[in-house]
């Protein structure tokens, strides 16, 4: 068990990608989250999972409870705006009748799951019914209006023709269905960031059973942290079943070093924001949820 101040606790870290061609076709990176949840569903480890599906507007996610492979695949690809995943966590155990709930989400949403498990406040039945949690790496998130401004103004693309969005190498990248690629410097997007993200002290979903993200691995591959006993059990079985190609993280470029570097930037920067909140007013402060 590694216990890293920036990357959290984990047993192993690998670079991996799915061997499922259908999943890879539409995956943001290595198709890890989709493949894991489909596998867990097919193996009966979960009987449903909260995913970020398609919403009413292009690239606006809508969380829903997926109970089939087909539905899980509908939630592929990163949508860089808020999807309130946890709004379904109780309902999944109610009208959906689930006994083993899977959850996908970014760091803060995984924190919410763990908090509900330990301090269930009007969250009856939830603690015992969370079966598998996959967390995504997350630097910061945007509101839908922000993503509209970035895509439609800064990169000058129409949202309904966008095939994929990515943040990497200092740029917000937009790929269109017709093959066009447009970018905006990340610097320009900063003012659109969701303010709540600036107090977040978690980059690689420290509290997930398994966490995964693009940073550290080559394009088309994902960096995967296997963290808990549940995560370890599912990961090793899935690898044995031939669901993933894997490489030791030490053998890929840019590797763990870049993950570490970005985690440091996020955490150290946000620690500073938290510190500033303590002296925000004259002789008074703004609240600190970590206090």
């Amino acid at each position: 068990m590694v216990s890293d101040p920036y990357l959290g606790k984990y047993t192993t870290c690998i670079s991996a990608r799915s061997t499922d061609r259908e999943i890879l076709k539409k995956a943001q990176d290595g198709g890890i989250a989709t493949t894991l949840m489909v596998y867990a569903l097919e193996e009966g480890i979960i009987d449903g999972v909260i995913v970020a599906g398609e919403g009413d507007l292009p690239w606006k996610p809508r969380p829903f409870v997926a109970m089939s492979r087909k539905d899980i695949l509908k939630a592929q690809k990163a949508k860089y705006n808020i999807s309130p995943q946890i709004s379904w966590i109780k309902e999944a155990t109610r009208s959906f009748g689930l006994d083993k709930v899977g959850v996908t989400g970014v760091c803060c949403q995984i924190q919410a799951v763990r908090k509900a498990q330990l301090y269930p406040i009007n969250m009856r039945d939830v603690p015992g019914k969370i079966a598998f949690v996959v967390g995504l790496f997350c630097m910061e998130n945007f509101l839908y209006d922000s993503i509209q401004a970035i895509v439609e103004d800064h990169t000058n693309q129409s949202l309904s023709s966008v095939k994929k969005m990515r943040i990497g190498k200092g740029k917000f990248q937009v790929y269109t269905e017709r093959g066009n690629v447009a970018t905006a410097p990340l610097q320009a997007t900063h003012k659109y960031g969701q303010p709540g993200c600036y107090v977040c002290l978690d980059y690689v979903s420290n509290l997930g059973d398994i966490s995964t993200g693009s940073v550290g691995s080559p394009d088309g591959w994902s960096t995967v942290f296997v963290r808990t006993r549940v995560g370890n059990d599912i990961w090793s079985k899935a690898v044995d079943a031939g669901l993933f190609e894997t490489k030791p993280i030490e053998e890929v470029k840019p590797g763990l070093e870049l993950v570490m570097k970005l985690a440091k930037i996020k955490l150290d920067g946000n620690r500073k924001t938290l510190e500033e909140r303590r002296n925000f007013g004259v002789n008074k402060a703004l609240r600190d949820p970590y206090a």
Partner: protein
Amino acid sequence: MTKVVEISPTTRHEGHSKLTLKVNDQGIVERGDWLSITPVRGIEKLAIGKTMEQVPKIASRVCGICPIPHTLASIEAMEASIGCEIPTDVKLLRVILHAANRLHSHALHNILILPDFYIPGTETKINPFSKEQPLRSVAVRIFRIREIAQTIIAVAGGEAIHPSNPRVGGMYRNVSPRAKQKMADLAKEGLVLAHEQMEFMLEVIRNMQNRGFTDVAGKEIPIPRNLGYHNQGVMATAPMYGSSSLDEKPMWDFARWKDTRPWDWYMGEVTIDLEDPSYPIGGTTKVGTKANPRMEACNTVPTYDGQPVEVGPRARLATFKNFTEKGTFAQHIARQLEYPNCFYTILKCLDNLDTSGKVLADHIPQGDGSMGWAANEAPRGTDVHIARVKDGRVLWYEMLVPTTWNLPTCSRALTGAPWQIAEMVVRAYDPCVACATHMIVTDEENRIVAKKLLQW
């Protein structure tokens, strides 16, 4: 010579109440008053002006054992007032919810009454928390029945305590096919347990009926054959679910109901002059204490044809199944007899439930101030809510809750009982005193009573 003894508080039922009893030289109750001393929360008054969506959620909080009847009766009273017809699958989900709530409530009541009863053929009273057999298996069975029932409520109703799914005009959500299967599996498991539990309870109750006496604090107390008999009659609106003013043939008659004050039905001031410090556990009220049920009762007295009536499982069986026994043990028996039908009802509703059916009325009128009522056959009896809704807001609201009906009826049924087992008579009504105490005096005349109370 008549003496007055008082048991305060009473135990092993929901809420806060007491028994003020006039007894003869043999300690037999001549005239007893069982009254709520739970503080009035005034749900009916504070409902006025609030939206018709909100009031049922507040009404639910009247009671955590039977929140489902209050939610459903309240919502359906609103629907009756505004004239909103709900889709079939809504009705099915509500009945499932309702039947499951009755199951968990009856099973919980088993835990509360069993300590009054004996293991058949022995002189050992039943401690449901005992680790000894056969009691342990009985407790485990009760817990499982309740767990099953609460799970079904949570799935169909959104939440086991204070269901979130029902709304004016229908439900928020239908259930998934998986959830439907889960409820059916649970109901099938529960049905077997419920049959076992019913047989066990019936044996225990029949054994009690054949005993001549029971032990209270080391003393042999005779059990009269006619324990808990009264001549107040019964009232029920359905064997399972209920009725409302939207029905073609409503099963409750608004015109026969009249709300009255405790003043008309309870004793005036008395002084306690009989005390038994050995009454388990902690003794009875001190000699010299003054009591005044007329003034202290926090319940009103709803009447049907000018008299208090009995509601509950026995009332339902007597009304719809020609059940002829009466008194304390008959009430217990009738309650156990309701077990299997709840599960059969759930299974039947699930068979008919279309999980892709719509669960919200297309049109929800906002109301013109017409009066509408809905009666829900709660575990403890007929729970009638009456409302007037105009422009989406509640103009007037009234709740006639089972234990409110039963309080004065049970008081009359105390006559003839040795005072030491008066509580056994009370428990056969499965009292829910918080339910009974939610109102505040309304009209001019009654306001005087309220003022007097406030001066205390």
